[in-house]
């Protein structure tokens, strides 16, 4: 087994960086915008906010040139609802924001889950709560990305570690949204977003199509919850009922019937939960002989992988798991790491969010230690992670 492998469902390649690709020097934000364009995004509505604004600026220039529509909305609430409308009109819709704007979008995301509307929200994390330190890196939105809406609901959350990931996962996010009729969050952070790096851009990328309603089936019913029902488009000649209230397979409101609600809410959750193995992606480094482990995402994954190289000459065998979906998490490699390792360290630019999931997955197989660093946008450097790993190994 190689020391480093990507984990993606169905044996597909995780990275789109292939031989023959064109090299670009892009920031993470530019790579997100270009990935969205490559995936066929043709509608953007948003409100500028640091540190996500470069995505909006790039798409403001590029979308109209490519036949798409760009709108600066009056706020983030309007932005996400414009995405819902554009998506039902047949568009591929994406917006980008940061902490305070992401909070405002939660209501619209809940409606999008309930109405099974494909769309992508990019949240470039900064330091909160409130307006916090607006231009500085943080990773405090993980739980909000997963659980920010009211009610029982699941969506899909991707987390890039590099500019290359920003391109690749933007494509993947759009495709997942379309294929499953589910809103998807691309959870970046300031460090990833503002670091300029090499990006290998393939000549073309696969574009998944949403299931289209053509008069057969029901737009809000699927016998197999893993498969999204066919979606009618406005203006295609079909009567479309669409509501954020509980509805049956036709879209007709049933706001008191327990069976209708139970059936709908369970199917919406199962659509993500039963596809978890196929959706979960990540990387693993050196798990086969790991004596100690690190689980890290986003920008901190880069420091964790570099820490592994620092520790190797010191005789410390560090295994690293990098989840690139935060929901669903790639649980199997984390579980495998917990079975092997004497301890797992979870570095975050937050005061303990991912660590809670790692504790749940490790389930007592080994101790799990969080390392949080917040303030000023400073990363946890490889030397800091290596120092903490040495402490727990001792």
């Amino acid at each position, binding site marked *: 087994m190689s020391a480093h492998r990507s984990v993606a469902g169905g044996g597909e390649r995780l990275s789109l960086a292939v031989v023959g690709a064109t090299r670009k020097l892009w920031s993470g934000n530019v790579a997100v915008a270009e990935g969205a364009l490559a995936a066929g995004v043709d509608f953007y509505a948003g409100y500028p906010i640091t540190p996500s604004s470069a995505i909006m600026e790039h798409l403001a220039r590029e979308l109209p040139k490519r036949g798409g529509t760009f709108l600066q909305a009056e706020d983030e609430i309007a932005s996400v609802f414009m995405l819902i409308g554009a998506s039902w009109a047949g568009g591929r819709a994406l917006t980008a924001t940061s902490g305070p704007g992401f909070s405002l979008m939660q209501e619209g995301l809940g409606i999008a889950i309930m109405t099974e509307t494909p769309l992508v929200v990019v949240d470039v994390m900064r330091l909160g709560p409130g307006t916090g330190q607006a231009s500085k890196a943080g990773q405090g939105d993980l739980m909000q990305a997963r659980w920010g809406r009211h009610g029982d609901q699941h969506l899909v959350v991707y987390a890039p570690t590099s500019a290359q990931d920003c391109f690749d996962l933007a494509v993947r996010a759009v495709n997942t949204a379309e294929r499953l009729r589910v809103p998807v969050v691309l959870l970046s952070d300031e460090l990833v977003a*503002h670091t*300029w*790096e090499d990006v290998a851009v393939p000549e073309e990328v696969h574009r998944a199509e949403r299931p289209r309603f053509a008069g057969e089936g029901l737009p809000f019913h699927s016998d197999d919850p893993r498969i999204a029902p066919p979606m009618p488009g406005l203006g295609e000649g079909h009567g479309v009922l669409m509501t954020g209230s509980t509805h049956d397979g036709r879209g007709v409101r049933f706001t008191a019937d327990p069976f209708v609600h139970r059936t709908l809410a369970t199917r919406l959750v199962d659509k993500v939960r039963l596809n978890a193995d196929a959706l979960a992606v990540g990387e693993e480094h050196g798990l086969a002989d790991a004596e100690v482990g690190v689980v890290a995402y986003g920008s901190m994954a*880069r*420091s964790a*992988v*570099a820490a592994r190289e620092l520790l190797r000459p010191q005789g410390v065998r560090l295994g690293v798991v990098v989840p690139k979906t935060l929901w669903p998490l790639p649980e199997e490699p984390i579980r495998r790491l917990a079975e092997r390792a004497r301890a797992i360290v979870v570095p975050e630019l937050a005061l303990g969010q991912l660590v809670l999931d790692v504790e749940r997955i490790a389930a007592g197989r080994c101790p799990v230690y969080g390392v949080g660093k917040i303030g000023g946008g400073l*990363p946890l*450097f490889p*030397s800091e992670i290596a120092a903490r790993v040495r402490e727990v190994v001792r």
Partner: protein
Amino acid sequence: MSKGEQGLLISGVGGQGIVFAGRLLARAWFSQGKHVALRHAYGAEVMGTAVHSELVVSESPILCPYLETADVAVVLHRAAVDEVLPRLAGGALLVLDAEVGPVSVPDGVQVEVRPFLSWVEEAQPGDAGRASPLLALGFLSRRGVVDLDPLLAAIGVDAGFADNRELIFRGHSLG
């Protein structure tokens, strides 16, 4: 830094062209097929406070793009010097503008002082600060940190092309 990676810091004050210099350097290395990572100041700090461009360059993929310690650092304004000194790697090359004044550096750090700002003040009155990073890049090319031709190519042919080339040549001669 991981094995084979070199870290570089260009520092000065907001409005001086530190971000532009970082981008030029990144483009020069990138055009040679090297792996490069660039982070630079943005937002409120770009006018009037210390500003840094942080670069990592390597022949192989970069593991961690976030600069912890610099192997080469250029400081073009005294506002930035206190933030740079703690970040120097052992044996680093520290290039200072003469107006920064005397500094106390860790043992093993090689210090080069050049009159970038004063030279530009004489040659291009009124635009001293904004030209000095290009002189410094020319100086770095003479020291082998970056090759001269890709650096010149990175300037492109936009407005100021000829003046910028001249500044890089002049910096090269100061090496």
